[in-house]
């Protein structure tokens, strides 16, 4: 079956998931990201690559950081950016997703950045564009349901490579709410492809999907065993807004068992870095003392995220990786 992210020649023209991307494609994207880092350091934080292109941010679900970094990335590439807050727009008046897309295509959109609470919504748009022959319009998944958040996965890989040099031999732990985390899935697929030595998911049984071992990860219920000899520790936000049942006794109890503290991080390697996709709940999944310590690379993740999103946009618009 054709990967919907690729064109007939195998070039990446949409970014829907880190799953299915080859090591070469991932590496090419990371290398391209590295070349964009310098642009944001200049006085003139702009290059003309996407001049005249229109990028539509379609956010059906709120996200300040992701939407802002996509907006900054597109603007630093000289694109025109149109932000649509779908929760207050025509969707609320009953327009379907694909009707919205058709209307924006009629406004000559070149790229859609889509965040949706339903898994698969960006795929639906890609299928629709393909069916209607609009192959020059690109779609970037900015997070769909529990499924995927590929640009977060890419910026996490960029961060890991920046601090650790390579993926060979790395032990990486993802801690906490794996069940609701599209970031965890995106990271796991990318880490597998890039050759990390071991990938662990650590959390209470209720927050770990039952079939997760199939992705090639180790499951740990105990934080200390999960952190043992880790090079990279990724804390995930406890997504209480997505929790419908009694998955968790309380945030305090969660912190007591799985919250990252300096004491618990002693099980990891002394030079282990701590990452978090944000927004973080201090005192729940991560202690303030850890979040503010030199080993935390949470703010560099945000900076790298802009360069990675610039890289994704230019690779897609420029004919793919």
């Amino acid at each position, binding site marked *: 079956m054709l990967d919907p992210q690729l064109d007939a020649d195998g070039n990446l023209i949409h970014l829907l998931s880190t799953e299915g991307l080859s090591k070469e494609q991932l590496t090419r994207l990371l*290398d*391209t990201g590295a*070349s964009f*880092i*310098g642009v944001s350091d200049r*006085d003139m934080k702009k*290059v*003309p690559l996407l001049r005249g292109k229109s990028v539509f941010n379609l956010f059906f679900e709120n996200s300040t950081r992701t939407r802002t970094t996509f907006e900054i990335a597109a603007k630093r590439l000289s694109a025109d950016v149109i932000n649509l807050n779908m929760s207050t727009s025509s969707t609320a008046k009953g327009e379907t997703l694909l009707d919205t897309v058709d209307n924006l295509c009629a406004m000559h959109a070149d790229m859609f950045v889509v965040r949706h609470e339903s898994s698969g919504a960006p795929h639906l748009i890609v299928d629709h564009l393909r069916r209607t022959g609009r192959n020059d319009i690109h779609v970037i998944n900015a997070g769909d349901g529990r499924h995927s958040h590929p640009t977060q996965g890419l910026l996490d890989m960029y961060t890991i490579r920046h601090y650790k040099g390579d993926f060979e031999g790395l032990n990486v732990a993802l801690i906490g709410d794996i069940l609701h985390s599209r970031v965890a899935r995106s990271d796991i697929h990318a880490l597998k492809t890039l050759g990390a030595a071991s990938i662990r998911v650590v959390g209470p049984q209720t927050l770990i999907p039952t079939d997760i071992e199939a992705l090639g990860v180790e499951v740990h219920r105990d934080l200390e065993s999960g952190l043992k000899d880790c090079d990279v520790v990724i804390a995930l936000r406890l997504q209480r807004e997505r929790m419908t049942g009694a998955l968790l006794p309380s945030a305090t109890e969660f912190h007591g068992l799985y919250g990252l503290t300096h004491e618990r991080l002693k099980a990891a390697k002394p030079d282990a870095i701590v990452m978090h996709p944000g927004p973080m709940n201090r005192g729940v999944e991560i202690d303030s003392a850890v979040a503010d310590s030199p080993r935390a690379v949470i703010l560099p993740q945000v900076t790298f995220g802009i360069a990675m999103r610039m890289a994704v946009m230019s*690779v897609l618009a*420029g004919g793919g990786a």
Partner: protein
Amino acid sequence: MPDLKKLPDAEQQIMALAESLRPVFERAPETVLIGVFTGGVWIAERISQLLPSHPPVGSVDISFYRDDFSERGLSPNVQPTTVPLDIAGKPVILVDDVLYTGRTTRAALNELFDYGRPSTVQLAVLADRGGRQLPIAADFCAWRVSLPENANLVLTRTPVDDPKGQLTWSLDDA
């Protein structure tokens, strides 16, 4: 195609180019050399060593400024642009290996101006092979040669990672 079985010695051409630039740096010591990736940077570094004042060298990678991005996409190996100091108000010598269509020079000028407004920009190239598509000319040039469209004139450095590596020309049919 002219008989180019024996291509000129690039190292000697660089010495000649440095010699022709010497009066510029005597007149205006604040002049900056900016090489265009990759060959232009090698040449600019070599020229800086040959001049007594060892002027600062910067580099530009024009990948983000190309006019054929929508047809050709992004180069897989974009190098970081490093403009070593504030170029605003300073004379700049832009250095490239081969001047052909002029499109690279156009892109390099655009990028340069995103770093500041130089007082003057002059172009120094090792080879001018003709075939211009834009109103651009070299101010300093070591070798003028007329080559057909299908010819590919390339400067290589051996070993490629060694700043003191041997620079040589090669010519093949594209």
